[in-house]
């Protein structure tokens, strides 16, 4: 875990209100990063907005890493205005990521909205390890869909939109439940409602489903206990025990 002033290499608006930032962060990348881990980004240098913004690591290339985010408020508006050459104060890598069981060759990745961010990193690593990767990309409507060109090459992608404007019409959770039995492991990242829907549509409660949780965070290191969730294994911190958990351990 490192605190580092990372230099912005590029900032691209990749979809409406959605940004892709590439940063140079030798300290953080040098600490060893795993898919599903995240960073805490300070937004500007004042105390308003106050807290850092947690963001999944989207991709890592050598000493460079990427995050993607949607502009939602004050903090992300500041980050969206960053230019190449600017610096962002980051903490990371934080938390525990996805763990691919040895012998899992066929992975199903389930993304809700920008939940695709850490799954791209996971797909990159899994493909490099010789796994087959199928990515379900769920989004309300086609215009909010993560651009094809930024998806991992070699993954088989199926788009699901709630309004049917692209790909299959429906919920990504339903398709995930339908396809699950064909895969060795399922890794998901999206809103809590998506995990609830996955459970409701009968996805297995076996050990093979891992999900990344999102809560408000303050510290990112397990100190403030602001992100505690009740699990079948007792109280857990989303920030330091997670954010990735076995779906079977969650009380959803």
């Amino acid at each position, binding site marked *: 875990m490192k605190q580092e002033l990372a230099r912005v290499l590029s900032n691209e608006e990749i979809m409406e209100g959605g940004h892709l930032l590439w940063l140079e962060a030798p300290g953080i990348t040098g600490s060893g990063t795993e898919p599903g881990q995240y960073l805490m980004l300070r937004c500007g240098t004042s105390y*308003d907005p106050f*807290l850092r913004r947690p963001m999944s690591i989207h991709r890592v290339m050598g000493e460079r890493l990427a995050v993607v985010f949607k502009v939602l408020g004050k903090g992300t508006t500041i980050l969206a205005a960053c230019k190449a050459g600017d610096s962002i104060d980051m903490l990371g890598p934080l938390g525990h990521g996805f763990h691919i069981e040895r012998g899992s060759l066929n992975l199903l990745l389930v993304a809700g909205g920008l939940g695709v961010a850490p799954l791209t990193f996971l797909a990159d690593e899994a493909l490099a390890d010789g796994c087959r990767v199928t990515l379900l990309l769920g989004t309300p409507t086609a215009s909010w869909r993560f651009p094809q060109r930024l998806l991992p090459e070699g993954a088989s992608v199926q788009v699901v939109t709630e309004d049917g404007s692209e790909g299959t019409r429906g919920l990504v959770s339903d398709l995930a439940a339908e396809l699950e039995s064909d895969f060795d492991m399922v890794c998901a990242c999206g809103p809590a409602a998506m995990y609830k829907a996955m459970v409701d549509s009968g996805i297995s409660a076996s050990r093979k489903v891992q999900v990344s949780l999102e809560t408000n965070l*303050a*510290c990112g*290191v397990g*100190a*403030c*206990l602001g992100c505690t969730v009740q699990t079948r294994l007792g109280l857990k911190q989303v920030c330091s025990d997670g954010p990735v958990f076995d779906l079977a351990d969650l009380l959803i």
Partner: protein
Amino acid sequence: MDLTTELVSGTRGLKLKNPVMNASGTFGYGTEYSSLIDIQELGAVVTKGTTIESRAGNPQPRLKETPAGMLNSIGLQNIGVEAVIAQKAPLWATWRVPVIVNIAGSQVEDYAVLASRLSVVDGVSGLEVNISCPNVKAGGVAFGASPRMAAEVTRGVVSSTTLPVIVKLSPNVSDIVEIAVAVREAGAHVLCLVNTLRGTAIDINSRRPFLGNGMGGLSGPAIRPVALAMVYQAAKMVDIPIIGCGGIATAADALEFIMAGASAVQVGAAQFVDPSSLLRIAEGIDEFMEREGVKYLSELVGVAL
């Protein structure tokens, strides 16, 4: 420059190498930030609030950002005193930095029980009595709101331990000076002002309070002038050391509290924003003293009074 701060004298006193420590509840048990900063360089480490039995705390959500600050409603989630003694204290005993255990009870007697139990534990250098947590019904601010109750809790603790006793006061009272005087007369060695200010936020979409517990405690730079005024008022009326706490994020903030009468400071929410805050503040105080030709920190304590 000499930043040492003697809060309590004597063999079992409380002498800090510098006046900067974390605020309880923002630093876990001291180990959580140890890969980011050298915690041995702090004035002291103050632990998460500790109760006799473990507590699960409040429902989610527990955090909400506010203008230049944040609300929390953790609800004293902790592993309980015996687990603290078994799992955490042995490591503290190997540290140079003094560890102060923050204690909270749901009845007056609990505080004395906790004090007596911790009094004999290696690695514990002091107690901070939490009579000011706004996030639990019992054990929190209820004791801190009445001078009589606050004094009763303080007496119970002081008579049950030989450790230095800090009492942390709530700002959610009509007259904090009255409480400060009562606690001092009951035998507290040090006061800490202040805990979080009660606050809340409403989610206009769900039309419900944002926090799972309905209300929480406000911290961060937003509360600093309020906390500072309370230190300023209390310092005029009590003759024991005060630890200032509330929205401190920079060395200049800390110096304001020191000049208003604080002998030391606690930094809480600011180190979520910048984990290097604690050490940066200590360095900044040192630089200020050097620039101003101040040899001993004590020369600055209360100069604005």
